[in-house]
């Protein structure tokens, strides 16, 4: 094992232990580890942005072919410089144009992607079991139909659970619809199952991370033996 690896391993182990020290509570070791992580991450991101974005996409084209690339790169360069004005409160208004451009483009991409990539396909997928198009037999038909029914029931009851409308009465106390109340109870079951699944996945991810860290430490220790 090379010394660099040993040092790097040692640092990694130490940082891991420092982060795991949060079990006893907030302590300086944990904060140091967090600060180091934030700093290193910020530095690395800056370096990546410089070497993988600015240099190859702005500097190098202007250096290689300024006359060809300048008209194309002039607007991005100008908007980028104006965006830097956000750091100064008095002239931060100059960066409003760049911010507006960025927000507008992001909103457009997000809305279009959500509509085309999620809403419509998911809507189609929700009604597909009732279409019986992919059914190859009665069994599949029943299976698909049941699957669709359960999925539909879960969706409706979950939405019913989140319905908080109350009908006013003469006595002043509100009364809910009995049907909505029953659907809400069923929706609570589906919501509870969903929360359980989410917790399981999160626990599995965390346990996996723990196992990996423990395995790294044990491997590092074993490397010395």
């Amino acid at each position, binding site marked *: 094992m090379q010394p660099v690896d040993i040092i790097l391993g040692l640092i990694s182990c130490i940082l891991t232990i420092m982060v795991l020290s949060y079990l006893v509570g907030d302590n300086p070791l944990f904060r140091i580890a967090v600060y180091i992580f934030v700093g290193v991450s910020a530095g690395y991101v800056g370096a990546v942005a410089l070497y993988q974005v600015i240099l190859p996409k702005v500097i190098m084209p202007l250096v290689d072919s300024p006359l060809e690339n300048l008209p194309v790169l002039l607007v991005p360069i100008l908007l980028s410089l104006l965006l830097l004005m956000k750091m100064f409160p008095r002239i931060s208004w100059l960066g409003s144009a760049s911010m507006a451009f960025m927000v507008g483009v*992001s909103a457009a991409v997000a809305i279009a992607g959500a509509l085309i990539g999620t809403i419509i396909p998911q809507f189609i997928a929700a009604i597909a079991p009732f279409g019986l198009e992919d059914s190859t037999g009665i069994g599949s038909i029943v299976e698909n139909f049941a699957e669709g029914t359960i999925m539909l029931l879960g969706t409706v009851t979950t939405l019913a659970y989140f319905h908080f409308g109350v009908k006013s009465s003469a006595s002043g106390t509100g009364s809910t619809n009995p049907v909505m109340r029953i659907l809400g109870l069923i929706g609570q079951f589906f919501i509870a199952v969903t929360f359980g699944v989410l917790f399981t996945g999160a626990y599995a991810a965390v346990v996996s991370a723990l196992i990996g860290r423990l395995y790294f430490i044990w491997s590092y220790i074993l490397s010395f033996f």
Partner: protein
Amino acid sequence: MGDVRCPMCSTPNPEGQGTCKVCGARLTPLTSDIAAANLESIHPGDQPTRKSTAELEHALPDWLQDLRKKPETGELQNPSPTAAPAAPQPSLSASETDEDFLSRLESESGKDDVPSIQPESTDWLAGLSDAKGGDEDIPDWLLGVKQSVDEEAQAAKLAASQPASDNVDWFQRLQEDQKAAKGGEASQWPGFYNEPPGFGKTGQEEPLISKTDSAEWFMSAPEGKAPEIADTSPPTGVTDWLKRRKVLENQPGGVPPSSEPSDSAGAPIPDWLAFTQPATPEVESPAPAASGGLPDWLSDFKADQPAAEIPPAVPASSEGLPDWLRSAQPEQPAAAAIPTPQPSQAEPDWLSGFAGSQAAADTPLTAEPASDGLPNWLAATEAGIVAAGLSVPDEKKTAELPSVLQGRSGPAPAPVSQNFDLPVGTLSSDDDLPDWLSELPGAPGPVAPAKKPTAPLPPVPAAGEQPPAEKGETPNWLVGAAATAATAKAASVFTDQPMAGDDAFAMEMPDWLSGVTPAETATAAAQIPGEPASGAAESLSPSELPAWVQAMRPVESVIAETTGEMEDEQFVESQGPLAGFQNVLPFVPGLIAIRRPAAYSSKLQVNTGQQNNAALLEGLLSSESDAAKVKHRSRLHYNKFLRWMIALVLIILVAIPIVLGSTLTPVNALYPPELLAAHEVITGLPSTPNVLVVFDYEPAFSGEMATSSAPVLAQLMEKGATITAVSSLPTGSVQANLLLATYLSSFNYLGGDSFINLGYIPGGAAGIYNFATNPSGTIPVDVEGEQVWSDPRSFLADTSQLSDFDAMVILVDGSETAQVWIEQSRLPLGATPLLMVISAQSEPMILPYYDSKQVQGMVTGLFGGAYYEQITGRPATARLFWDAFAVAFFVAEVIIVVGGVWALIAAWQSRLARKEEEA
């Protein structure tokens, strides 16, 4: 310009014009009078100066001030609401004689608290000399009287030794005049002969009250001699002659009848005043009714003085009487023949009173106010005249008359019977009555309407109604005049033509006498008593108000324009409890529905809900005093020990398999379908596929992601796939190198030709979209700066778009990033399969994409990796982690079960405790 603006309407008028051409208001203010009274001139727009009535008392004439004094039991009303409270006027009882009345007046005048410039007196002529000019000139007849008064006063000073009770002692001067007539003393004109308000010449605007303040010339006269008879009563505002009458009445035998009237001092009195000798006790009479033009002083006297019994009229000598009074001498016969006096429209109220009393010839005057305007003292003197049978030769009467009346003595005119309310025959004979009294109008001729006094006057009987009177209560001198007037032919005092022998009035009659025409008097007689005269007989106009009144008048007011209208609309209530009052709202039957008030139940109408709320409120209020029990609240402790123990147990249990390297936990064969689909997709790829791998997971999840993605990439690498790594995270390229260097080091892809690391895609979702649509344009070079898209040696030389790849594998830990990659790259991929290796925490959100067939295969978390290793038959790191992973899940399951049970037991115990507390 010279234009003068009207103070009322602001209309410009030519200079020199007296009245406004638009509204008729006076343009020239009475500044001289105002200045004389030390009052500030009024300018348009000025706010009226508020003055109390007490402050304005001094501005009133003395005689008016005196007359406004109320008696103790007075019936005399306050003549003006703005004036100072009137002095109490003495009220006369039925049995009180004139002398009693006079003495009481004297006593009460001393109690008068009303401030006045002049002492309490009725010297109506005293102020004549003090007049500083004014709106009208002092009549010559008043001037003559003034001169006689002066002479008389000087003589009285020499002879008199007793203090004067009051300054105004005109009657004493009258008697002294008689003495002077015999002995050279000057006579004095009775004060009532002053111009009463309301009387003026026709068409001429006369001031309401003479500016000369006629009492001033009385006041300026030296104090007359006091009556010889000692009078213990305090001086009053009554003239001395009245006192003398009173004294005479008190003497045993009453006033001794003598052919020649004389005062108590023995001095002969003028013939024309001979009737003043008291003969009968005065009858108490209330204040006279409101008559049109009766001056306040006359009406007040009429109210104060008892209605004396009017004895049968004894016509006095008409030679010494003024013509106007001479005509009023009643004729002898029959009292019953006296027609009911009808007050003419033009007849002044004070004269109309005479007519009313004349009708009640045989009816004695009672305590009711006399309907005429004749003061009671005048009526009383009439009785005296009758009793005394006075008769004064004409020449003596003429000589005794003041200069004012000297020119007017003449044949007595026919007495006006119906203008007097004295019973017929009560007046003395023509020989006894003074000329001025005998000439009182008896005929129902037109009499100039009198100006209605501002003060509410006592009610007057209706026209024709004979005022109740008691015999012997009216002055003797006036009784005879009334009787004479009843039978005398109708003759109006106020005639257009000068009366025969009316030399006394030839020169200059008072305005209130000289300005009346027969037409006006007829109009006044036809009017209902109590109502003001209508038509042009209105002698006063707003523009010629006296200065002291005008000083009080607001500039903005339009009293002058509305006074007449208001007066015309006033009426006297004749029925009900408000009878006699003026300006009473008329009663309209049926306007107000008189009914019993509705009975409302005092019981509260409450419903059940309100009762419940009330009971609840009562319970809350009652519980306020109860001390609330302090519930034991368990503190919420931060259980560090429990957390430490769980952490310790988990770490130890997880580390044991790792340390031991055990693989005892079997991997089940229940593979998820998405995992099997992923395996099938990769198996179905051609050899050496060109695969785009996206490394979008954080370093914190590298253990799980590396464990789950390693078998998938291993399978691809075994197929000889060329891997192009790209990431939307700055640390993605490093993660790719780390994965290839550690978990896939056996394949030696790092640094080889089968692996290209494009690096970081900036811009988030927009960058991913840009890369998905134009990969070479978005990232033209790799992390080392080489042109991999255009380099022919690169396996990306033939790849220009995303669909040129054989497969795309996205390694992502979060669901959001996975969604963005699926949304942005699904369409550009086309038929290229999309495989995902995701973390266990994002499986619930990404699995629908598999169900919607947007993702062709999915490997989830550590157990997915383990399953995939088991499927591919290459156990790797995932299998090493499987035992620890299983132990961790087992520990978690145990902890969850134990904790649940513990929570159930604790809840059951708390419920029991709550029930015990409630019990």
